């Protein structure tokens, strides 16, 4: 019965449990949650405050604007370039979402249901493409887009967005389909379905929450994507909102208040999407953890 620990001063069981009891108490948990929420909200709040100043007033170091003004918003919203950018972003995000869903749902299903030669390697390959820091792919991406003549065009940006988000969505869809018992597809096939019908009539309707989650996430991710869009667009006609906001950063000065106002306006649609669809996002992302 003698263990190697004998003779050492060990913290007693009661003391260790007491420590965990404190850590798990509602008060401590709430404190941590409040802290986390503040961590997320404070920069946004700061940005909103900045957007209420004038560009010059930003440099007088007050947190609260002395004379709050909506002039920055006015300046952003009357510009044609802003509305064009919103339109571009809508086109990019919608097209990307549709394409990613069309590709990732069948792919995720195939990875969840079928064993074929090289299936594991292929799946790891899909995930592997997301392991590179995107910045490392910027140069080849630029070269390829230049070669295809897609610089300064919406298809060029959409291609990049699909490349960026497809692997993640394949992964999410695969996990979602894996949470749907394959007995159901097999039963459907015995009942008279072809493999494709079993997918369409049984697995797909059951995966609807997952599909919704993937669609929402893809939309949000491609809406806010900045780096790849910045690389291929210098032109207003194909510029998405994430890049347009950046136009307030000049060579010699930064128009902070305008930048802040434009950012606040740019995140409004995403906030709406999250508020309306959070149910799907949560259920979609946690599906793999639930059994039946």
């Amino acid at each position, binding site marked *: 019965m003698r263990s190697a620990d004998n003779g050492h001063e060990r913290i007693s069981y009661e003391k260790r449990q007491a420590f965990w009891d404190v850590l798990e108490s509602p008060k401590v948990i709430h404190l941590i949650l409040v802290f986390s929420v503040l961590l997320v909200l404070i920069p946004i709040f700061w940005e909103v405050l900045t957007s209420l100043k004038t560009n010059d007033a930003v440099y007088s170091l007050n947190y609260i604007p002395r004379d709050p003004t909506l002039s920055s918003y006015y300046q952003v919203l009357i510009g044609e370039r802003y509305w064009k950018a919103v339109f571009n972003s809508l086109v990019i995000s919608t097209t990307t979402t549709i394409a990613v869903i069309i590709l990732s749902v069948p792919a995720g299903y195939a990875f969840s249901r079928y064993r074929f030669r090289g299936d594991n390697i292929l799946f790891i390959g899909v995930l592997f493409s997301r392991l590179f820091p995107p910045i490392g792919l910027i140069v080849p991406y630029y070269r390829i887009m230049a070669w295809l003549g897609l610089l300064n065009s919406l298809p060029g940006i959409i291609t990049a967005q699909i490349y960026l988000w497809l692997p993640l969505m394949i992964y999410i869809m695969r996990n979602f389909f894996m949470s749907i018992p394959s*007995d159901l597809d*097999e039963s459907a096939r015995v*009942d008279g*379905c072809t493999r494709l019908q079993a997918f369409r009539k049984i697995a797909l309707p059951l995966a609807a929450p997952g599909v919704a989650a993937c669609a929402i996430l893809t939309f949000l991710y491609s809406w806010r994507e900045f780096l790849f869009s910045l690389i291929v667009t210098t032109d207003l006609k194909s510029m998405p909102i994430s890049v347009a906001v950046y136009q307030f950063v000049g060579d010699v000065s930064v128009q902070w208040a305008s930048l802040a106002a434009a950012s606040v306006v740019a995140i409004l649609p995403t906030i709406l999407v999250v508020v309306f669809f959070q149910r799907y996002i949560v259920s979609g992302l946690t599906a793999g953890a639930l059994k039946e």
Partner: protein
Amino acid sequence: MNNTTYDTDMSDSKFISANADGPAESTDDDYNVQIRDVTKVFQDQDGNDIVAVDDLNIDIRRGEFLVFVGPSGCGKTTSLRMVAGLETPTEGQIRIEDQDVTGLDPRERGIAMVFQNYALYPHMTVRENMSFPLRIRSYPDDEINERVEHAAEILGITELLDRKPSQLSGGQQQRVALGRAIVREPSVFLMDEPLSNLDAKLRIQMRTELNEIHQRVGKTTIYVTHDQAEAMTLGDRVVVLNDGHLQQIGPPQELYDNPINRFVAGFIGEPPMNFLPSTVHEEGGNYVADGDFFEVTLPDHIAGVLDEWNGPLDQLTFGIRPEDLNNAELLDDEEYAEDRSIRATVKIVEPMGSDRFLTMVPANSETPEFTARVSPESEVEPGDEMTLIANLDKMHLFDDRSGENITY
């Protein structure tokens, strides 16, 4: 909703009419399903071959209730899935209605299957679940309704038709799964451990109902279970599988009374048969089985077998079922026989109401424990020493080297 006509419609109706023509008087060669020389080899993660089913040959008669039974991993579910078309045999042929279906899709085989987890479609109501096989085959609406209502009536689930599967109890879900199979009017029913998710009481109740439904519907049924009691109670014939090999096939009573080897003897029957190591020698013109703690004179029919037997007499195991060991004190003088007695100590007493299960340990012996199933009047307590009289008409001798029953 679905206006496409599928090829399967034709074969389906053929199956139905074939059944309507003559299921009543089925002859012995009227085989509904034939499994011929079927082998299934899987590859594990490291690419090693695993033989799940090895050279299986079974002919299943029309209207028969055939049960595949064996421990987990014996290949019973794989065999069923090959009949269903959900797995492809590595070698061999599956024939249904005298037609080679080996390469055909499940939907083209005229089968219906009940899965262990019922596999009810969660997004459909009971009615939609049950009608799904008919809707996908574009049956006319009134026929669909008629068949669904009829099946629901047989199963007593009419009032559940508009519920979703999640609103049903396990037993009700089970009935819906059966209903979905019945509406198809398939040539063959396949059932993969359909009762194993139910609690003990419901399982026995559903077992009886399955028997009843089978008698009513009269269709060929292949049923997979790991539970020998289900196999015994349900099967017209039972197939015992172990390690992918067919051990024995026959009516349940035959398997119980006359098991081909030690595996079948130990698998069929609860509590299982006792195996007592022994040697056999000749003594005064009789054969005597000599265990560590008992010595019994073998009856004539066993002696006849031993006369023919060329193997070593000292490598035999004496097999006897618990109910063939009786409490000597409760027997009258005529039944009592010294040369059939086994003496041992009682270790555990389990009263079952109708019988008592006694776990016995032989005194001064390495021989493992064995079980006796004695009458409830036996007043014994743990620690008592008692004499059991063996009914040697029902004994068996197993060859230690092959496990084969030499008295088979």
